[in-house]
């Protein structure tokens, strides 16, 4: 069995076959699930730590600063040191808080982001589960996180938290629409909701190029709406440190705070990967229809790097927004959604349908 970094399908099948051949099917299933769980947990931790570091460095460079540079060369171990600090911190009990919900909330938030990451294709054949309604599934589970935020705000017996949670509720309920509709626009072009098939459909050019105008509009809307969905600036009203101190996670400390913190970065990673997958071809290398030599040269770069590169570029865009713009007010946030994004989105779907119907796409 040779290991192929360009196609994981055979590798996965080999593991699957070996396990089922040697073990009863129940234990084989358990082992497979554990393996995937451990792999994702590691991935999650590494990505979380890296993104926190990246955010701090990016914002430092934007702000004419150096950023973390004390722990390790260029401060690369800074987030690890922070994480150790958070682990050792006291978990402060809150008077009159609803203990059960207060403890449950960070887990809901983090589980929602875990579930969403399962469906994302990192490379050819490299995904935990390949639903035929992948996009639908991702949308469904990623919106579960708001339940955790609402619970956190409600149960921590703090007025700022409650206001933050309510803002977050209103915000995510509205922006879910735009995220969904902009994804639907791309589903029209792809003709499938299965994420692996969407990637395959971009074999001859990424959707952002083949779908031209409507795809680009959908991408911009997706970027705005998904930034809002992850509660990041300029839509970080749920946290809004200058207004609500820290919003819904004001009362959390130690590892429970770290969960919220990690979940925020993972949600950012997830929406960026979805954007990369449905607009920029996911792990698909840059292919231009007809240029055989060029396409072949591009294929030499492993798909995983293509995927990570695209995701990181989208993440960088989101960081760039955050460190440039002032925060919106809650009514303006809703106005932006209902007055601008939603009508443009609906119009865009019609445009995309027309493009697909008339075959105007490349």
């Amino acid at each position, binding site marked *: 069995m040779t290991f192929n970094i360009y196609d994981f399908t055979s590798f996965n099948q080999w593991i699957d076959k070996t396990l089922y051949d040697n073990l009863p099917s129940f234990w084989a299933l358990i082992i497979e699930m554990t393996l995937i769980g451990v792999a994702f947990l590691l991935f999650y931790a590494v990505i979380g730590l890296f993104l926190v570091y990246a955010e701090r460095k990016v*914002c430092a460079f934007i702000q004419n600063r150096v950023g973390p540079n004390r722990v390790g060369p260029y401060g690369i171990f800074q987030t690890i040191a922070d994480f150790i600090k958070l682990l050792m911190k006291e978990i402060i009990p809150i008077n009159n808080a609803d203990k059960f919900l207060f403890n449950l909330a960070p887990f809901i938030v983090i589980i929602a982001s875990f579930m969403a990451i399962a469906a994302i294709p990192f490379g050819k054949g490299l995904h935990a589960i390949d639903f035929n309604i992948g996009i639908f599934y991702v949308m469904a589970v990623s919106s579960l996180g708001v339940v955790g935020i609402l619970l956190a705000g409600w149960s921590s017996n703090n*007025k700022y938290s409650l206001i933050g949670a309510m803002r977050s509720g209103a915000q995510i309920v509205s922006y879910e629409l735009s995220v969904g509709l902009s994804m639907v626009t791309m589903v029209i072009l792809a003709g499938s909701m299965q994420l692996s098939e969407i990637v395959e459909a971009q074999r001859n050019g990424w959707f952002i190029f083949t779908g031209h105008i409507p795809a680009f509009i959908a991408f911009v809307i997706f970027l705005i709406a998904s930034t809002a969905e992850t509660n990041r600036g300029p839509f970080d*009203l749920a946290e809004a440190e200058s*207004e*609500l*101190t820290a919003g819904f996670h004001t009362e959390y400390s130690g590892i429970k705070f770290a969960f919220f913190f990690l979940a925020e970065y993972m949600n950012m990673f997830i929406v960026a990967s979805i954007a990369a997958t449905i607009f920029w071809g996911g792990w698909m290398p840059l292919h231009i229809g007809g240029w055989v030599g060029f396409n072949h040269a591009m294929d030499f770069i492993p798909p995983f790097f293509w995927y990570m590169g695209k995701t990181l570029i989208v993440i960088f865009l989101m960081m760039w927004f955050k460190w440039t713009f002032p925060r*919106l007010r*809650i009514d303006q946030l809703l106005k932006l959604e209902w007055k601008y994004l939603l009508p443009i989105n609906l119009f865009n779907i019609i445009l995309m349908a027309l493009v697909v119907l008339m075959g105007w796409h490349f």
Partner: protein
Amino acid sequence: MEDIIINENQIKQEEYIVNMGPQHPSTHGVLRLKISLKGETVEHIEPHCGYIHRGIEKMCERLTYQQIIHLTDRLDYLSAHTNNEAVCLLVENALQIEVPERVKYIRTILDELTRLASHQLWWCAFGMDLGALTTYFYGLRDRELILDIFEETTGARLLQSFNTPGGLMNDIHPNFIKKVKEFIVHFRKKLPEYDELLTGNVILRERTNDIGLLTLEEAISYGVTGPSGRASGFACDVRKHHPYSAYDKVDFKEILYTKGDCFHRYKARVEEMWESMKIIEQLIDNIPEGDYAVKMKPIIKLPEGEYYQRVEAARGEFGVYVLSTGEKYPYRVKFRSPNFSNLSAINKLGAGHKIADLVAIGGSLDLVIPDIDR
């Protein structure tokens, strides 16, 4: 939460009391605002002062006039030089001492540099209040250059205590003129960047337009002065209407707006930075030769009587009232601090708006809390 005394009659059933401060990121200090909310809407704001009360006015009663100066630094620490100057002018006017022209010019230049530094800090803090954190570093980056100029000449970056009755503590540093000119060239390039980043930004416009309206009558009756008052059309620039130091020799525009919302308060300050640079440019090349101080008696005794001197600090009219009985200590000192009057209008400005607007209003008033409590 038990220690918050709430008058039951004032509060309706659905109201929701939130304490903003004394520790809160957007009150820029230890100001406590008791706000009653209805949903996100602010119904009533009640400022509670006194968390940083140090009894400076009382302390002044046991200090000589030279010693009072270093306490005025600690009122509005962002316009320290201007506050110093108020006391010095008061003593000089009371004793009818004519200070050399050189002193007047240097004082005016330092005044305007102080104003620039203060407005830069306001600009970055205002951006940060609204959630644009990057502005903070851009503002501080340029402010640092002014502070370096201060440090080289006065020996301190923030609390300079550079004035003394009769003149200045020291002559300007030989590098002063060169450095100020370099700074003006630098800042003329950087100030348009402020506009690109924040002033033009559609989110900032939406956040500040029509928020916290203050009419001219209200501004006058609340005594809102400085850029905040001038944004409502209140022509209250002491530099223009009661010139002191070298302000009668320079040509500058009093920035007046009419609407009195957050955006006009913002604009008034940004425009004032341009005017400040204009004033400095007019003076920096013409500093006359001469002494940097007149010889004063070691113990200054003001003649019996009441004295009042006002200057234009970065946030508005700063006044010093002294009641002297002819001793070397003043009998009573009262500071008319601009922030206290500006804060008094906050309920008028903020009621009926959202919480986020209250933060923007607080930022646009540019409050410095030690100046409120004294």
